[in-house]
């Protein structure tokens, strides 16, 4: 999903910066608010950031024969919301832009928009939706992580086709979707599974924090406690 350094016309770089910066600023305020209100959630914030660090460093092969990496943005989005995740994503993207020449400073705004804003926002919405229907948190986090990952790449494809509608937007979009979105399908599923593993582990050890963050409802944990006596 990284748009490489210098690979967007400067007008688009500016545009995506203007879109992304207010969200990141709002995310920083949100982090302050959440950690003031629930100081015990700080370690989970670190875990969410660390999860993005790990997953976005793993370039996995896909059935289309090319390699791509997961994003890890679903966990943070479900635990802390999309704005906070945009800050975490921004940190990772700056690290990769400066040290790895992956992505870049000029395209940082665009990359934050896809990986830090659209992906997490989709994940957060999906989780809320699943919660509303009444399905379990594990299914919710799986679908949220899959959509967060996949829509990050669809966004990148859209951004590139907007900047390079050659010959038309539609044809360019089809081309970029083949490069990004098809490759990403199995990887998104893998990311969903990994996110379920870490989420269930957190839910087993510290359901109290998840309840405070309103990620799960209190009665859900009672069920888990009943199923696994001794852990709580």
């Amino acid at each position, binding site marked *: 999903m990284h748009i*490489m350094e210098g690979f967007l016309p400067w007008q688009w770089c500016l545009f995506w910066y203007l879109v992304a910066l207010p969200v990141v600023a709002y995310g920083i305020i949100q982090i302050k608010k959440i950690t003031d209100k629930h100081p015990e959630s700080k370690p989970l914030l670190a875990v969410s950031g660390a999860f993005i660090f790990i997953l976005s*460093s793993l370039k996995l092969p896909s059935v289309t024969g090319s390699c791509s990496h997961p994003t890890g943005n679903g966990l943070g989005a479900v635990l802390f919301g999309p704005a906070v995740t945009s800050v975490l994503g921004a940190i990772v993207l700056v690290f990769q832009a400066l040290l790895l020449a992956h992505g870049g400073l000029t395209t940082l705004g665009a990359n934050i928009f896809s990986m830090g804003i659209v992906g997490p926002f989709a994940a957060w919405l999906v989780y809320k939706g699943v919660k509303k229907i009444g399905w379990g948190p594990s299914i919710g986090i799986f679908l949220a992580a899959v959509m967060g990952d996949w829509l990050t790449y669809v966004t990148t494809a859209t951004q590139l086709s907007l900047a390079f509608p050659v010959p038309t937007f539609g044809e360019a979009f089809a081309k970029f979707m083949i490069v990004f979105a098809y490759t990403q399908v199995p990887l998104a599923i893998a990311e969903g*599974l990994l996110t379920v593993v870490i989420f269930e582990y957190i839910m087993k050890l510290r359901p109290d924090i998840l309840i405070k963050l309103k990620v799960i409802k209190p009665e859900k944990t009672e069920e888990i406690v009943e199923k696994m006596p001794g852990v709580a």
Partner: protein
Amino acid sequence: MVDKKPIILLCLVAIIAITPLVMYSGLGEDEGYFGGSDDAAGELIEETGYEPWFNSLWEPPSGEIESLLFALQAAIGAIIIGYVLGYYQGQAKARKREEVDEQVMSTNKISK
């Protein structure tokens, strides 16, 4: 009892990662396989005649240095997750022990 679910899920992830390697076994970068999708998109853009107007301030000088930095990135993430979850696990154990102690204390009092 060990919870089997995470192990099964991790095995599924491994299968997803290994399948393409088996499917295209014997093929490599020279045949156009297993390249990065980011680079593929870059090539598509260059085909339109666009020239990047800005270069990275610094690039890893070789593939070795690049993999060093990627490993560093993953290690930073892994150490944080391992530390926090390990801490939580210890906390959960300590809490359980306290509960058992309290129970023992209260039964002792009753028997006295």
